């Protein structure tokens, strides 16, 4: 939109003044803050930031810390399972909702409502449902199956899946809504053509509709992935990282070292690693999505 402006400098001044908060946020907080943290991750800051540079020492220590390795492993398991399952469940639910059903609004409202709740609430409810004494395990045992064991939050081997159950409950509704929007964007003629050709419905979905929805899938995936890296509140509420350190995640590592452990350097190094992980996801996506063509 190019307007012929008789007095461009003055006219633009107001818009520029109005954009000051945005410019400050972008440049000082986002760019400046990130650069600051990355720079100070090379120092040996403890209680307070210090300009004593020690090279990659913090990173070496980070990758030698067992808790960090557990955190990374947990995030990988949670991330992969969460992406695959929420896309799968979300898409199947969206496809079911797209069958011109009655009560679509009711079903959507029910499946999406957990998304309105905070991770703290989500984590606390599932902590209660998965309580071995009173929750699912206790009930099944009470029904006579005494040897039944289902205590994900108290078993270090599977605790991350206990968190996954809660995370999926909270987030699948969002994926379903995004997928449903994508399905509604598909031309109805495609369905008619497929029916005329006698292609079974599941084949139409698998080989025609899903490839057509590629952009929706990619965008959804980026949204899920950038949310997964931030995984923090859910773990704090549901397990506080326990039992032991079995359900620690990187974001919690950062918080604990920065604000309780008084080892800022470790916190900065760990958060820089988180940034790196996000960049690995976002940069190829941004390149595919916006590369070459100008953003409008």
């Amino acid at each position: 939109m190019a307007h012929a402006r008789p007095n461009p400098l003055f006219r633009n001044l107001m818009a520029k003044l109005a954009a000051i908060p945005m410019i400050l946020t972008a440049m000082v907080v986002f760019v400046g803050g990130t650069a600051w943290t990355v720079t100070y991750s090379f120092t040996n800051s403890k209680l307070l930031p210090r300009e004593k540079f020690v090279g990659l020492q913090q990173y070496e220590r980070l990758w030698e810390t067992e808790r960090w390795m557990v955190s990374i492993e947990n995030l990988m398991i949670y991330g992969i399972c969460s992406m695959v399952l929420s896309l799968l469940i979300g898409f199947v639910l969206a496809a079911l909702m797209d069958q011109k059903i009655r009560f679509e609004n009711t079903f959507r409202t029910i499946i999406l409502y957990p998304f309105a709740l905070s991770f703290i609430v989500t984590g606390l409810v599932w902590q209660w449902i998965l309580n071995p004494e009173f929750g699912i395990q206790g009930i099944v045992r009470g029904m006579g199956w005494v040897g039944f064991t289902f205590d994900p939050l108290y078993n270090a081997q599977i605790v991350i899946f206990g968190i996954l159950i809660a995370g999926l409950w909270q987030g699948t509704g969002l994926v379903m809504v995004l997928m449903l929007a994508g399905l509604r964007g598909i031309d109805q003629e495609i369905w008619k053509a497929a029916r005329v050709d006698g292609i079974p419905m599941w084949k139409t979905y698998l080989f025609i509709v899903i490839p057509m929805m590629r952009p929706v899938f990619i965008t959804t995936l980026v949204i899920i992935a950038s949310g997964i890296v931030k995984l923090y509140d859910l773990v704090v509420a549901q397990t506080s990282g326990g039992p032991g350190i079995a359900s620690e995640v990187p974001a919690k590592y950062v918080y604990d070292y920065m604000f309780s452990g008084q080892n800022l350097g470790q916190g900065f190094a760990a958060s820089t690693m988180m940034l790196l992980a996000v960049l690995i996801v976002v940069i190829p996506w941004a390149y595919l999505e916006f590369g070459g063509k100008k953003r409008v």
Partner: protein
Amino acid sequence: MSEPASLSATAAGADAVAPALSGPRGPRPRKRLSRANIIVYGTLIVVSLYYLLPLYVMVVTSLKGMPEIRLGNIFAPPMEITFEPWVKAWSEACTGLNCDGLSRGFWNSVRITVPSVVLSIAIASVNGYALANWRFKGADVFFTILIFGAFIPYQVMLYPIVILLREMGLYGTLGGLVIVHSIFGMPILTLLFRNYFTSLPEELFKAARVDGAGFWGIYFRIMLPMSLPIFVVAMILQVTGIWNDFLFGVVYTKPDIYPMTVQLNNIVNSVQGVKEYNVNMAATLLTGLVPLVIYFVSGKLFVRGIAAGAVKG
């Protein structure tokens, strides 16, 4: 509410389906009861029950007395309904030495959420307006950085913001947290408003310019009155987002002004004393009530708000 043409595809699609369902009456065609339909409805009903289960468990647990909970089934409806856990959660539950219940956290959250929502929407709507109608050199660069900033993990920026707030004397205060929420709400809200203002007919803007209206004149007299729906969407997005925040609350405030989520977590996960599960669930439900009410009242606008996050700029 009259909604403009640029509605999210979900809502528009749902509207398109509605007329097909209210077709001719009379005996139902046999096809409706086909096996495929039974599978579709059966699956959706089972899934819905699963999604409702935690809400149900929260409600029934919060209405039971502790002796009944110790007896066993968390899914059983209460034999004797008691509201005592709710009263206790609201006004007596303890965090550390304070025993004035979750009400303190509730009012803190109100005092945090209201100014944060107002400030963040005010800033972002003006930003979006400037980006859509008054583009200046370099605006796109800042906007692109802002959007990319939305993907940076918060953890990377936590400490620099601590330093900035400390320099301003706002670290640990309500004002500081309000600024933080405004900063992190800016990318998505600016995108939302920019896209909306861009979709408005440009002739309006040009006509106002010809009539001599300036930057603020056009904003307050033309853009603002035309954009109430998008302001409602932004409000829903921000109220639920800020109410549900935990990380910023715990990092940038002090125990006296902890928001409700932080206080809730401290009450439920406190290691001292006997666990009172009914009080815990009442407290959890109380904390979830505000976003739940907003969600159920706002309906499609909520969907539109979250879909805005998925629409690329």
